[in-house]
């Protein structure tokens, strides 16, 4: 899939995803060792984007399983198409039961869900299991089977084994501690907030019209906000949002008024805004 770590960085960059050395290295290793990649980190730093970018680079289809509380086997793996089965039964009235029975549990009546979809088929695939921490613990047991052997057992059909291993990315916001067994099957990658220089490049890439000097100022302020003890520190997504806002406002430079007026774009809690305003010495917030 990739020839070297630099190759990963370069090709991801072509899709508009600027990867830190840590990200590029881990993606390269995951491809080389054929192991799933568990990505953790705060919201908005590009965990899901990474999977999409890898899919684009590898010219693979992206199969996505969005986890939520209560997601179960029939949502993740496969389901039988009951309606179609009923139709089939009522259509073939003069058959023997044995014939019908073997017939309605065949491929035709199977509804593959993301995990089965990713394993079947020969096309290169990136399987994204998003927000794994939202799923219940039972779901992890299912993932263990899929991720260690890349096979799934459908009782009526037998075991389906991947002919071509998908590149698997699991993301998690660490809302729940994932089991040790699941972690052991994966390579672990923590995507934190990017270094100042990388973040500048990201903003330049996404909002090129903003200008070099202003971009640098934006990134510096964001860096200062992250160093504060806030309830929700701004992530890269917010940096980019803020850059777009400033562009829309037509701000030439960053000054007190502009920052004070647009602080709501980057901070999502009123007490955070107040704290940041005090620390940045923005004066009275009474107008807000």
């Amino acid at each position: 899939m990739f020839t070297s770590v630099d190759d990963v960085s370069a090709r991801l960059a072509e899709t508009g995803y600027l990867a830190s050395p840590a990200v590029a290295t881990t993606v390269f290793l995951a491809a080389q060792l054929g192991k799933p990649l568990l990505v953790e980190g705060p919201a908005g730093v590009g965990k899901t984007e990474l999977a999409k970018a890898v899919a684009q680079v590898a010219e693979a289809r992206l199969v996505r399983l969005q986890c939520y509380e209560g997601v179960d086997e029939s949502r993740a793996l496969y389901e039988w198409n009951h309606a179609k089965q009923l139709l089939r039964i009522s259509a073939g009235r003069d058959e023997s039961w044995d014939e019908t029975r073997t017939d309605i549990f065949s491929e035709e009546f199977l509804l593959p869900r993301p995990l089965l979809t990713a394993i079947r088929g020969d096309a290169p695939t990136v399987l994204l299991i998003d927000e794994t921490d939202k799923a219940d613990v039972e779901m992890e047991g299912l993932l263990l089977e899929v991720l260690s052997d890349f096979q799934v057992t459908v009782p009526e059909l037998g075991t389906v084994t991947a002919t071509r291993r998908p590149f698997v990315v699991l993301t998690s916001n660490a809302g729940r501690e994932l089991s040790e067994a699941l972690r052991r099957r994966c390579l672990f990658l923590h995507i934190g907030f990017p270094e100042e220089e990388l973040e500048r490049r990201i903003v330049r890439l996404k909002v090129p019209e903003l200008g070099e000097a202003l971009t640098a100022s934006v990134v510096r302020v964001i860096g200062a906000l992250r160093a504060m003890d806030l309830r929700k520190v701004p992530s890269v997504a917010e940096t980019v949002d803020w850059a777009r806002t400033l562009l829309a406002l037509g701000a030439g430079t960053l000054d007190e008024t502009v920052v004070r007026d647009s602080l709501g774009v980057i901070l999502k809690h009123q007490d955070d805004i107040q704290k940041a305003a005090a620390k940045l010495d923005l004066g009275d917030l009474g107008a807000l």
Partner: protein
Amino acid sequence: MTALTERITGLVGALRTHGVRIGTGETVDAARAVATLGLADRELLREGLAATLLHSTAQRAVFDPIFDLYFPHRTGGTNHDPADRELLRDRLAEALTADDRAQLARLAAEAVDGLGGYGSSPDSDGWSAYQTLERLRPQTLLARVRTDARSRDGSGATFTDRLLDDEIRHRIEAFRRMVGAEARRRVAERRGRDEIARRAIRPTADRVDFLSAGRDQLAELRRTVSPLARKLATRLAARRRRAARGTIDLRRTLRSSLSTGGVPMRPVLRRRRPVRPELVLLCDVSGSVSGFSDFTMLLVQALHDQFSKIRVFAFVNRLDEVTGLLDHGRADPEGLSARIRAEATLTGWHGSSDYGVALGEFTERYGAAVGPRSTVFVLGDARTNMSDPNLPAVRDLARRARRVYWLNPEPRDRWGTGDSAAPAYAELVEMHECRTARQLGALVARLLPV
């Protein structure tokens, strides 16, 4: 290759002694990663090993210094003349102004080489980060770097200018860490890597002993509270959900089966009335254990919505209710303990803790707070300063509450030494050793009555 294998297993061993659980499979993966990535780029190697060996973000703080020991970016000293202190400071100021990481790392090495050696013989193994920083005093460069940076940027009074001081402070802090790592590496070269890896690396935040944690370690611990609380909350919710499924209610199952001709098509489950437990916390907040009680209170505060009622009492030798302070303190956990000490009456005519008087005062004044639905946590080291432990008060408490647990931040083998009344209390109520955030999290998850 064997030397390299040895190095990897050594690294794995050192990580294991610091509580990172690594199986053989991961070690093999790590070796494959090294083979794939090659040894040319040290930072790639670092990321590759971290990806294969680690399982969580917190472990990274332990991993990085250990990696620096086992895969040093150079060996031996630097090839510079004995560094002139003033010259070094000049160059340091320059690098800080430019925020040049590579140059800072080089300077850290030079500084340790030139200023950090101690001991008389030329072969002495002493390299001291402390001494290096004492002689170099990078923190005093702040004003100078600020001036340099301003004049370099040209414009004076732009908005981002006000961020500059903090940014420079962070750079200096990073430099201090580099010096620390460099000194550790040099010592390790002389004295054996394994020993240094075992002794000189700080444990992850959740394994720091409450009683011996320094100020910044406590701050780090505090940051682990909210994720820990969230984890506990989901676990408790799951437990409650499972418990709510309950058993089959035979009578109602048969009653509902009338509509299907007496065939019980759908079982009716016995609904349990959801009872949110009440929680009462008694915290010793005297100086010796304040880090611990502080932390526990934060955790309970974060778990607030899991309980119908929480009441928190703090004491040193007098006892007072602080529930209100905790409610108001949600936005500002930092100043909580200071505010509790300032606003509640916790001390009488002396400043050391007295469990007997405080517990007596509790049963007298707030006895009604404890009923058959409440679970009581007592937090403290049970050191009574030689006064009467007032066992009847505890017995009374244990009789009236649903459960009473005592969490003691002292190691079990110190219970009963000196003025500790721990064994006497432990006979009346369940006492648990609770020295680290990890232990606390596990205990709270196990003991909470959900």
